[in-house]
């Protein structure tokens, strides 16, 4: 995992509207217009959020197979994996540190 990629991902998720978009895209791919409607945001605002999400590598854009003027947005699985990795690593780190702390206390008691 690259630290800079993770930073970009987290920055993109700093906004509650963008988090909502990510949650929606988890279910299925959406058109930009449908995303704007589902989040009650004006279309230009949604476009800006989608641009940020795209630049962060969280979502990708496709053209609709039936109508090439329509853009479809979907979640990129790799981006989510990085976040899970960070949490898992933090988890493992504290497990190690607590075990070491306990050993330290046991040693110093003798």
């Amino acid at each position, binding site marked *: 995992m690259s630290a800079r990629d993770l930073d970009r991902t987290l920055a993109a998720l700093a906004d509650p509207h963008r988090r909502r978009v990510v949650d929606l895209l988890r279910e299925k791919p959406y058109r930009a217009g449908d995303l704007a409607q589902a989040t009650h945001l004006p279309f230009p605002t949604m476009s800006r959020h989608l641009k940020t999400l795209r630049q962060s590598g969280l979502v990708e854009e496709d053209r609709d197979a039936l109508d090439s003027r329509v853009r479809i947005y979907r979640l990129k699985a790799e981006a989510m994996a990085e976040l899970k990795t960070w949490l898992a690593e933090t988890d493992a780190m504290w497990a190690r540190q607590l075990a070491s702390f306990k050993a*330290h206390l046991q040693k110093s008691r003798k």
Partner: protein
Amino acid sequence: MTSKVFLAIRVPADPVRTFDAFTGDIGAWWRPDPLFQITPHGDGALSFEPGPDGRLVTRLGNGETFEIGRILAWEPGRRLVFVWRQASFSPDQSTEVEVRFEPVGDETRVSIEHRAWDTIPQEHAARHGFPEHVTLQRAADWWRVSMGALRQRLG
């Protein structure tokens, strides 16, 4: 909804002594992890500058001091809260660690809660969030995987 890591362990000392060892001896018991480095120069020698206005710092091999974070709560024998920032975090990113010390007979239960972005109280840090499903999955995985592994390791 929470994005956090939570672990607990029982240690053979009373809460006051456990708190003192946790804070005062961190340089002795902290084990650097090649997979999870606080700075690109490694973890260095950690130490708490004690007290409610103190901080957690680490002295690196090149002589520099890196501030991991300010202390937010310093309650000897009870509770400790501090900011946790790795060198790779961007300036507006922050996480927070809360350590609780609870008496269990003549021993102490030490629990660590490492809160990420969206679960940090607003007065402490900028808002950042993990998507909820990551968290849900973490919460479900935690008891199964992490604590199982920890218990095994401690015997």
